[in-house]
């Protein structure tokens, strides 16, 4: 191995040194060793093992048999699985635009010099560092029958609504929590993107008589595309992996109307201890993730070629 490295570097054969003084390959392996061990044991092995599990009927108690594609045939004829897939997609469709709209709006609000702006931004960032369990507990109260949200809707004569008890309202309610939790993070990324836009562009547009909206539409948005794209990717990942707030707030209910794929993995795995079946759901999630990132790549390359 040391020889290979030396040839690559094209260096003359060095004086023989003790291995821990050598600047060549051996020492590099020593430096990466802890990570390699951790990775093999807790990332790469579990990933391969996870795919393998999906072809077995592994349960914590009792043996495991290889059962081929049985988990998948069972999965694809299971209404719970199709329900979970639908819930995951509907949640993504509601949560992603909601979160990005709020983030963009807040970034526009914060993109100016004002006394006390630092304090505003700190407040907006606070939900990002808050534990999702804390967020879930407070928001359960906010959405409650006698909670502040129903008090507000009551003022205009609507309600009280059972936000977390309604099959229609539960996903929008959970999306609101995720928008509240995430907008501070996205806002900072968008703000950094906005600060990178040269001021001359706005001045030129203003001289040409573009009003505020036109400047936003034709200067800010096109130049903000990379930042927006990044925020979009983050939001897609987050919405597909949402678990904590659902576990704390709804437990997948009512009637499995907030039962997502990730929740199904947990429920089948640690509720029913059906590890093989839960892993089959995990494989479906993997396939979806890979497909989404392929589309992302493709869009990204297309954008680059332009």
């Amino acid at each position, binding site marked *: 191995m040391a020889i290979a490295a030396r040839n690559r*570097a094209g260096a003359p054969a060095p004086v023989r040194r003790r291995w*821990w003084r050598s*600047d060549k*390959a051996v*020492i*590099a*392996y020593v*430096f990466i060793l*802890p*990570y390699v061990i951790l*990775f093999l044991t*807790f*990332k790469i*092995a*579990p*990933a391969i093992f*996870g795919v393998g599990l999906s072809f077995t009927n592994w349960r914590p108690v009792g043996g495991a048999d290889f059962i081929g594609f049985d988990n998948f045939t069972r999965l694809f004829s299971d209404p719970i699985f199709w329900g979970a897939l639908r819930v995951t997609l509907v949640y993504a469709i509601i949560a992603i635009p909601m979160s990005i709209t709020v983030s963009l709006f807040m970034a526009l609000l914060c993109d*100016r*010099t004002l*006394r*006390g702006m630092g304090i505003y931004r700190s407040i*907006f*960032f*606070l*939900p990002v*560092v*808050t*534990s*999702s*369990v804390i967020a879930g*507990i*407070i928001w359960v*109260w906010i959405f409650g029958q*006698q909670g*502040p949200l129903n008090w507000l809707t009551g003022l205009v004569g609507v309600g009280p609504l059972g936000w977390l008890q309604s099959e229609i309202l539960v996903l929008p309610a959970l999306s609101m929590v995720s928008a509240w939790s995430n907008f501070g*993070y996205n806002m*900072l*990324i968008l*703000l*950094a993107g906005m*600060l*990178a836009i040269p001021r001359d562009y706005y001045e030129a547009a203003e001289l040409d008589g573009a009003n505020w909206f036109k400047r936003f539409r034709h200067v800010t948005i096109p130049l903000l595309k990379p*930042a927006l794209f*990044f925020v979009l990717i983050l939001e897609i990942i987050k919405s*597909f*992996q949402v*678990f*904590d707030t659902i*576990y704390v707030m709804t437990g997948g209910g009512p009637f499995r109307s907030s039962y997502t*794929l*990730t929740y199904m*993995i*947990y429920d089948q*795995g640690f509720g029913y201890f059906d*590890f093989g079946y839960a*892993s089959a759901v*995990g494989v479906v*999630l*993997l396939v979806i*993730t890979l497909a989404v990132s392929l589309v992302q790549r493709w869009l990204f390359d297309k954008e680059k070629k332009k």
Partner: protein
Amino acid sequence: MTVSTAPQTTSPPTTPTGSKPLARGRRRRPGLMHLPLILAAVITAFPFYAMIVISLQPGQPIDLPGSLFPAVISYDSYQEVLGNSRIFQWAFNSAVYSIASVVLVLVFASMAGYAFAKKTFFGREVIFWSFVAMLMVPYHLTLIPQFIIVSEMGGLNTLWGLTVPTLANVQAMFLMRQFIRDIPDELIEAARIDGAGEFRIYWSIILPQTKPIMATLGTFVFLWHWNDFLWPLVAQRTPDMYVLTVGLNSMQQQETVLATTMAGAVIIFVPTLLIFICLQRFFVRGVVMSGLK
């Protein structure tokens, strides 16, 4: 990605009066611009306010909007939560989990990052990119196998079994490598000529140079672990081994008194808040850095 330029790019969000002397809304009166911001801040902060206010009114029915401005406050629910010795055990578990992870991730990630950035060795690219590729695998797929592996090692319900699997942090290693790549080779060469061994170079040349990214990564890793829920939920099976998030969730499930649960939430939130106030600039830098990738 140029991490070394990140501090310049990130300074504007923290110092609003910095690089942009011309306000975009300069024709309007500045006072008017505060209105939407104040409204947004009130909405954002309301859940925190409600959490505190409810925790201070145990044993009282909550009626809006009166309960939001309590005339009488009581600390009984705090006494009740703190009188329950479990919360100290949970706090201890959370602290060990978070602090041990920060230290070990920073050490391992900087070592690996140094090797990947500055060394040539057989298989470097393959190993590096196979690590990065693991970012694509959803965490939930690996959750069950990870549980089985840790369980086979006898690590369930132990602090080491909780901590060790989470140390394989791809992002940390990736950021370290990017950062160390920008450290000039001359610095390392000079140390080598002066007779420093490889560990000496790592310890006295590389580590001090990585201070800015250490601070940023450290705050993030701490927060991930302090707020982590799913893995501790699965790995810690008995109440005395819970971490704070899992403990709070169990309180919510068992506790009928809302004020007590909220008091627990406030107690868990205080450390986060203190860390956030002290290390805010590192958070901001970290977020923006992730956006520059």
